[in-house]
């Protein structure tokens, strides 16, 4: 098995290098065509001109952001045929693993940070609800998404709690065309279905976009034994609407969304998950140098149990978050930007894990300020401070950061210090849960917040179609929150852990040529070091890599794009306690390495028809034993899909 994986990886590496060899000649030939070069910037160069928002909370060109920000655009996820954020992140970024925790709940490991230490935002707004410390990733479809911005490292000085290991911000599409109508459908192995529709219009001061999506998948039985045997069947439904009014420097955005998921977890009962979201945002350009924004966001995430025999749908969890926010920007000397702002959040949580299915409410407030200072033409510094306060825990936290960027020739150097923290959640403070009449899990109101000092330094080299980025990072983490066994209480209790460090190296290289080839390769080394008797308690894989090789052409009535994507994850050996109640005995466990590759073909036919086909896990990798962090694959799978942009059949062809 290991030999097979080695050969697979070697073959794929050679394949990845082929375009460079094949296109070297082509590049020389096309380089003479100056006009062509000027009018057809390589994709990566275009990407650098993308305006991003996550790293500094103000719009800024990607090439000018002093923190390494990875942007994945809509064309990327169409090319690799993924439909949700979970698959996309795993495909595009090394160091990211979505795995199963108890009861097949999905949990994230991003370079040693769990789901509760990586902040997921949708247009800058937090998501309510969690299960086993992770938000519901199935809420994050890619319909109506323009791009995803990923900032690795702490960012609490801008985003507060949970921005410890990184921030993932999903940015919705803006409506630019007079009208659009897209209908799409996808069918794959295990009766995996996705059907969606999107309609938008832009008329005068008004713009609207509406997306609906339905997905379903049968239960899937794994061919070998393991920590999970059959993956539950499930279905989801998602609908969202955005309405924008713009007039004389004023932009108002209203939005509403509904999400539903049903999981066939038991023969006689299903788990149901619902989310209701809405929001209002007003942005106003007071003057050329002054802008103000105010917003209100509502997000409610419910869980219920649906009994098939009685038909009762009983809610056992509800998290309701109201967030009010204001931001003010002032630009000095047309290049230096001061941002000040504040948030208020009311956090309501009712849970079956509280005594008598009770509830708790917490109010949080914060204020922050950031100054983006272009000291010279080459040197940029962004510094920020933020103060957060939590009403129930009486906890307050001060988060600073400083980012520096220096550009010379084709090189950008970045260095950063940022503070990250995670406040104890209502669940962690007040849980009182009877675990199947076996033991209790108790909350701890005296928990300290998790903190992280994050240091990073990065070098980015850009020349023509080539882009190379190397980043080193070092995180000092204190008071990570976990559960420990309490003999006196005969139960688990939330507690703070001993310090640990997470350090490593993050490298990526990409290139694109006019002949139609594109390559991107990324590698991450992660070392999680627990300061506890030399034990290696983390199952974070030290070496991970992703690769994407694309080739595409477009003619008047036909075009195609072939993408080969792969993930390579090393084995990891770690120490695990043999008993939850006695932390003196450990055993070594090795989780095997694996690699998975996918081949996607996207064809553009006629004016607006896209035909998709994909073969996933093309080398038919099947785990011999399904550990919780093994890929939930049964081997090679297939999918086909259609997408029609109806409006293109009514528009004149413009060259």
């Amino acid at each position: 098995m290991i030999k097979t994986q080695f050969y697979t990886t070697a073959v794929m590496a050679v394949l990845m290098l082929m375009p460079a060899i094949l296109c070297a000649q082509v590049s020389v030939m096309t380089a003479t065509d100056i006009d062509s070069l000027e009018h057809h910037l390589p994709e990566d160069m275009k990407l650098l001109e993308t305006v991003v928002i996550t790293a500094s909370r103000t719009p800024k060109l990607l090439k000018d952001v002093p923190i390494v920000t990875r942007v994945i655009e809509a064309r990327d996820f169409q090319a690799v045929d993924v439909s949700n954020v979970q698959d996309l992140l795993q495909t595009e970024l090394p160091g990211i693993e979505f795995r199963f925790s108890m009861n097949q709940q999905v949990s994230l490991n991003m370079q040693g940070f769990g789901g509760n230490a990586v902040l997921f935002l949708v247009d800058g707004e937090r998501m309510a609800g969690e299960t086993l410390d992770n938000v519901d990733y199935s809420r994050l479809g890619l319909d109506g998404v323009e791009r995803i911005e990923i900032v690795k490292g702490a960012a609490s000085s801008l985003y507060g709690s949970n921005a410890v290991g990184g921030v993932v911000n999903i940015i919705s599409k803006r409506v630019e065309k007079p009208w659009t109508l897209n209908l799409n459908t996808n069918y794959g192995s295990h009766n995996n279905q996705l059907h969606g529709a999107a309609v938008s219009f832009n008329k005068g001061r008004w713009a609207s976009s509406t997306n609906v999506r339905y997905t379903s998948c049968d239960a899937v039985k794994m061919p070998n034994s393991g920590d999970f045997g059959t993956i539950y069947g499930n279905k989801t439904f998602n609908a969202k609407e955005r309405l924008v009014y713009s007039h004389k420097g004023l932009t108002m955005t209203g939005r509403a969304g509904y999400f539903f998921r049903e999981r066939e977890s038991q023969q006689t009962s299903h788990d149901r998950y619902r989310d209701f979201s809405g929001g209002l945002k007003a942005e106003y350009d007071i003057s050329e140098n002054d802008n103000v924004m105010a917003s209100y966001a509502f997000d409610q995430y419910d869980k219920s149990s649906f009994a098939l025999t009685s038909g009762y749908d009983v809610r056992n969890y509800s998290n309701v978050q109201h967030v009010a926010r204001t931001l003010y920007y002032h630009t000095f000397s047309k290049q230096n930007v001061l941002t000040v702002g504040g948030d208020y959040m009311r956090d309501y949580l009712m849970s079956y894990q509280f005594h008598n299915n009770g509830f708790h409410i917490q109010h949080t407030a914060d204020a922050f300020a950031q100054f983006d200072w272009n000291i010279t033409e080459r040197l940029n510094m962004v510094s920020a401070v933020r103060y957060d306060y939590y009403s129930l825990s009486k906890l307050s936290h001060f988060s600073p950061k400083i980012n520096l960027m220096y550009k010379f020739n084709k090189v950008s150097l970045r260095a950063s210090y940022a503070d990250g923290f995670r406040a104890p959640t209502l669940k962690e403070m007040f849980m009182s849960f009877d675990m199947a009449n076996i033991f209790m899990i108790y909350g701890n109101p005296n928990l300290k917040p998790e903190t992280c000092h994050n240091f990073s330094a990065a070098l980015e080299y850009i020349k023509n179609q080539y882009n190379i980025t190397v980043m080193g990072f070092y995180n000092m983490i204190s008071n990570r929150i976990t559960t420990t066994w309490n003999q006196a209480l005969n139960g688990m209790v939330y507690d703070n852990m001993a310090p640990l460090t997470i350090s490593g190296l993050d490298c990526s290289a990409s290139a694109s040529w006019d002949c139609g080839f594109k390559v991107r390769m990324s590698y991450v080394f992660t070392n999680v070091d627990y300061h506890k008797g030399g034990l290696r308690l983390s199952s974070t894989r030290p070496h991970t890599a992703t690769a994407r090789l694309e080739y595409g052409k477009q003619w008047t009535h036909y075009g195609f794009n072939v993408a080969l994507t792969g993930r390579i994850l090393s084995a990891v050996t770690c120490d695990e306690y043999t008993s939850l109640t006695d932390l003196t005995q450990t055993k070594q466990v090795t989780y095997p390495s694996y690699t998975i590759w996918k081949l996607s073909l996207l064809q553009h036919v006629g004016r607006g028809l896209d035909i998709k086909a994909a073969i996933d896990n093309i080398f038919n990798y099947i785990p011999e034993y399904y550990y919780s962090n093994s890929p939930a694959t049964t081997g090679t799978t297939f999918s086909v899909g259609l997408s029609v942009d109806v409006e293109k059949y009514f528009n004149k062809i413009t060259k």
Partner: protein
Amino acid sequence: MRKLLGIIALTLIMTSCDGIFSSLYDVVETTSLPFGFKEINESDNSGTLYLDTRDYAKWTYINLRDKAVDTANMLNNSVEPQDWDFAIHRYDVKTNGGMVRQTDFISLDELRQYGHYDEGNFTADTLGRVIVDMSGMMNGVIEYRESNINKVLSRWLNVDLSTMPPIYTMSGKIYLLRLEDDTYAALLFADFMNEASVKGYITIRYIYPL
């Protein structure tokens, strides 16, 4: 502009502090539900039994003749009742000198029409053990007690412990219970959870006497 104001008004009205659309859900007062015999139909001898079997220390005894339910706690050595026909501990089942056969029927009406209750092999109880205390499980201590178990009747629910959480699969089949006095009962275990999907609440549809 009116549209936008409408959305603003709607948003403010809808988003009450502790959430919206609570009417989507059912509210079940699980603690006040009556346990024991219910929905008894004297004309065709059928009915429904609803039992709380969450307690590992407890046997719940069912007397089909008198429509009575009683319990005994193994940890404090409670005495079992004098007259009973079958008993349930969590999902384990035993009989009072009876014998059991699993049929292929999944409908009590079809079984009644078929008749021939005495056909096939009936199985008596055998000695086994049941868990009486799980509280020490995390310390590796689980307390068991010896007890008779009817292995055929206990097949009504398969608990697959190879994955966590366990997968519960009901057979859906009707079981014929031949009592000591050669009368027959038909038992269909309809659920092992209550309306709120809490495990350990058992619903049995029965016909007695057949």
